[in-house]
């Protein structure tokens, strides 16, 4: 277990270094985009003259040299202060804290569903390879993978909310209903169904295909022959020997995607009017709300790094060979 703690510690140190690099790069990336908040605000205010814009810039510190702005920004971030959004007149941290839970609930549910269903379907396809069940799963996976995600969202919403009226078409909760406790949870859950399925379908397709391919490869390895020669039942061979080994590449890919899920649901959040980080990012870009945008970048970066570390740890648990080569 010492090796394990060591692995974890070394990963954390690397993560901190990566994070600093990300903060700096994000800052320059945002500033490389043409236009600044002062211009946008002035534009929105109507007939603004040069003097007003300059005044705004001075007020927000935008007239300072860029390295000075960077220094100020990093200093604040290290203290945990993500800045103040002048557009929304609120601290960035408050805005993020309000939006983050909605996104996490949506993406994590979708992720877990996609992983479970994908691995299950992929396994089924691999076990029944060459039969109609395998073909059906392959076709469904291909369709789910190839169809644009927002189109699936719109169609599901058209069918289940508008035609059948079973599920709410958009939103996070029933506005004005004022549910509390369990009733609130149930209300959010009902709203979750359509966006989660839409998002999960896409990722599920990938996992199903990956699991199938990986299982077919592992199935032909020598130790599976050994397992058969031991007289084990088909079910035990598949779960204990084939799937256990075939799952390794799935974990790798899932780990990468898990990090991206947080920032990658902009389309879904837009289609279903989901009040999450994705939509916040979209709005912040349109409004040149640098502080909010940088905050979102930081949070999503942390998520990616966090999930990568989690994946590494999980990998170490699943594959005993990893700790040695590390």
């Amino acid at each position, binding site marked *: 277990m010492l090796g394990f703690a*060591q692995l974890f*510690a*070394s990963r954390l*140190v*690397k993560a901190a270094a990566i994070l600093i690099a990300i903060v700096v790069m994000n800052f320059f990336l945002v500033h490389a985009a043409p236009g600044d908040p002062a211009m946008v605000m002035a534009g929105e205010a109507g007939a603004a003259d040069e003097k007003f814009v300059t005044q705004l810039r001075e007020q927000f510190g935008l007239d300072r040299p860029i390295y000075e702005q960077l220094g100020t920004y990093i200093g604040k971030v290290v203290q945990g202060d993500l800045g103040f959004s002048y557009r929304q007149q609120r601290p960035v941290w408050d805005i993020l804290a309000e939006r983050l839970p909605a996104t996490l609930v949506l993406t994590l549910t979708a992720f877990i569903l996609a992983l479970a269903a994908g691995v299950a379907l992929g396994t089924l396809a691999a076990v029944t390879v060459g039969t109609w069940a395998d073909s059906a799963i392959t076709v469904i996976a291909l369709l789910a993978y190839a169809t644009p995600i927002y189109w699936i969202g719109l169609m599901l919403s058209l069918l289940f909310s508008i035609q059948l009226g079973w599920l709410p078409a958009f939103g996070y909760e029933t506005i004005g209903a004022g549910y509390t406790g369990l009733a609130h949870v149930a209300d959010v859950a009902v709203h979750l169904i359509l966006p989660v399925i839409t998002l999960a379908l896409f990722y599920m397709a990938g996992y199903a295909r990956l699991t199938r391919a990986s299982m077919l490869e592992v199935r032909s*390895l*020598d*130790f599976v*022959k*050994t*397992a*058969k*020669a*031991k*007289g*084990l*039942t088909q079910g*035990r061979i598949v779960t*204990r*020997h084939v799937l*256990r*080994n075939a799952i390794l590449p799935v974990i790798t890919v899932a780990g990468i995607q898990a990090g991206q899920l947080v920032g990658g649901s902009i389309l879904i959040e837009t289609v279903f009017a989901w009040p999450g980080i994705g939509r916040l990012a979209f709005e912040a870009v349109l409004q040149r709300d640098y502080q909010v945008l940088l905050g979102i970048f930081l949070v999503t970066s942390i998520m990616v790094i966090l999930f990568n570390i989690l994946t590494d740890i999980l990998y170490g648990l*699943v*594959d*005993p*060979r990893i700790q*040695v*080569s*590390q």
Partner: protein
Amino acid sequence: MSQFNVMRTPPETAAMNTPLLDVRGLSIALPPGADRPLAVDNLTFTLNPDEILCVVGESGSGKSMTAHAMMGLLPAPHVRVSGGSLLFKGKDVLAMPEAEQRSLRGGRIAMVFQEPMTALNPLMRVGRQIGESLREHTALPAPARRARVVELLDQVGLPNPAELAEAYPFRLSGGQRQRVMIAMALACQPDILIADEPTTALDVTTQKQILDLIRSIQAERHMGMMFITHDFGVVAEIAHRVAVMRHGKLVEYGAASDVLNRPQHPYTRQLIASVPHYIEHRDDHAKTGAPLLVADKVRKVFNVGGGLFKKSKQVVAGDDLSLTIHPGETVGLVGESGSGKSTLGRSIVGLIKPDSGRILFEGTDLLALDRKGFRPYRRAVQMVFQDPYASLNPRHRVGDIVAQGPVAFGEDRGKALARARELLAMVGLDGSAADRFPHEFSGGQRQRIGIARALAMEPKLLVADEPVSALDVSVQGQVLDLLDDIRRRLNLAMLFITHDLRVAAQVCDTIAVMRRGKIVEMGTAREVFTHPRDAYTRSLLDAIPGKAWHIPDDLQNVPAGAH
């Protein structure tokens, strides 16, 4: 003398009962489009209790297929049994329902495979893998199973069995893994043990240990054993009876002493004739002129692992390695896996840069040269690789593969291709070979292409790294003959790296024995084989299977792999 050690016959009592295994007219069909319709064609043999039956044949002879059919391991639905029966204690295994077959598998009939490195599940502790068998076939509760696993690991001669049961396979060496496989096969006290080339992937000293273990366990438990092998040395070591297979047909079947000492079928005779025998060393090589290559105190250390918080481990692959090769001389570098013999070979070709020492080629230190300076010497030293399947680019035509080297050194493409055809003819391939792709050739033919590719550069020194160990015995003989012929015709010097002492005896003038990164003994083949000075060399020679067996005199003078 010729009767020595192969006179073991199965006990009389066994022969009188019904045989343990009775294979009658077994045929196994290959899918349409295969090179022949039947993998196994009308095979009939029996296996008695307390008997070791060796099934001998080259790759594709159907010997493994037979074992797989018995274990229900045929790759269904493409390959299936198309006729005949497999009677276990009088009952047809093939007619049994799946559940009953499964209870035989691992229970009454157990199997050990060829590749110990891949035959164990890498993610499961070895104790559990053995326990699985017990869980399936016995009613033992979990603690009793664990105790039995430790007992089994102890019986196969593994140290610290209790600790070892908790280890993952990657912690174990090849020999240890094969012992684990044997323990797994023995778990439920099977009546029949099938061993499919169980020692082929192992070093010669490990092979001897495993053969001894298998033989003693078989005798102790009076099991019937079907031992599949291609090596007549191994056959001489353990067989009671022998079945020789070729192209799916049984060509010779009889008591071991008869088959080994009085082989009847021409194919058996050919196989026995191509068995390299270590007694036939060469006459001493007359060293002439200045040495072509001198390796002087070469040292190479590999850093393994390491990270931010961890120091890397140092592995000394070669230390104080010195040897000389004269023009026209063949130097054999012999040792077990991990002894550093390939490291030295690769250093000479320039694939690895040693940490210290000198490699002088015609007086120039290759290690002191920069990339540009080294380039002319790349021509002069060429390599033939071990795996003929992996060492040829599958997307290039054979002619291009051979011509690429000279073209890279500025030769005209047309001329190089014409020369490639000549070389392919020289290594015994017909003219159309140049226009075909590597996958259209067999292993032996591919190795010929590999040799032609090396010769295209007109080298002075050929480094051959285990050039025949991936090939069948008879093909092995042919490739060795070819190398020898070319060497003599072109007066090539050769560094021949091999783990097989018998092969080294056949082709080398001088032998260097390596162990753990050091050369422990170096001398003429005659000296090393007749008067080995080092204890390790002696143990290597001692471990050669079938030493006690004297190849019948009338097959001795046939050149290996008669054309």
